[in-house]
């Protein structure tokens, strides 16, 4: 095997899915910022990777410290539960996006306020309609 092929294989193994994760998170953060600046949304959200709930794990999950898809609400003063559920609904109702997240190793959606830490965890596999194909 040529040296270059060998190095490419190593990079692919280490970075498997990571670049796609980074691209998705960057695109979402840019769009959240634009929407907040233009007045489309009142809560500024920031997307990042966090620790997921081991109970929500599935076959495609990454290790638990990077299996959480975290949405942090930066200005969370007076954040109501209904707002947390509303934000999560926009993700959980989009089946193709959930499947994409699961394929990238995420198993938990975390929506929480930055200061109050008030929020909720959602199990992605419960919303993907893939139950009959999942082992656990």
């Amino acid at each position, binding site marked *: 095997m040529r040296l270059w092929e060998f190095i490419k294989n190593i990079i692919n193994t280490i970075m498997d899915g990571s670049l796609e994760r980074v691209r998705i998170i960057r695109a979402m953060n840019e769009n959240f910022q634009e929407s907040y600046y233009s007045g489309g949304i009142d809560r500024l959200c920031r997307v990042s990777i966090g620790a997921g709930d081991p109970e929500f794990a599935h076959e495609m999950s990454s290790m638990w410290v990077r299996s959480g898809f975290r949405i942090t609400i930066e200005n969370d003063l007076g954040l109501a539960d209904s707002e947390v559920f509303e934000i999560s*609904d926009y993700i959980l109702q989009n089946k193709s996006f959930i499947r994409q997240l699961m394929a990238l190793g995420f198993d938990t959606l975390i929506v929480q306020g930055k200061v109050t830490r008030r929020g909720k965890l959602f199990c992605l596999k419960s919303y993907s309609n893939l139950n009959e194909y999942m082992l656990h």
Partner: protein
Amino acid sequence: MNTCCTNFIKRITAYFEAKFTKDKDCTKDAVNVVESFSKAKVLYKTLCKKCHPDRFVEEEKKLIAENLFMRVQHNRYDYEALKCISDEVDQSLD
């Protein structure tokens, strides 16, 4: 030795550039989620008003409106889908 290193760095850079600019846009759904969060609610309310079945007297239009209204309800969190339905509403109900 020096040119060898330069070539190697060039190849690594080209490899990562190619990986970052893939043809298939994997961020489409992610962008749609954020757009939905900021714009879907307004469009949903507009469409609900536009294609509410009670607005129409003719049986044919009422049926079309019922169908569109159901689709609007089903896709209330999906901005892309609502945009497509909006075009259909403009074509078939105006």
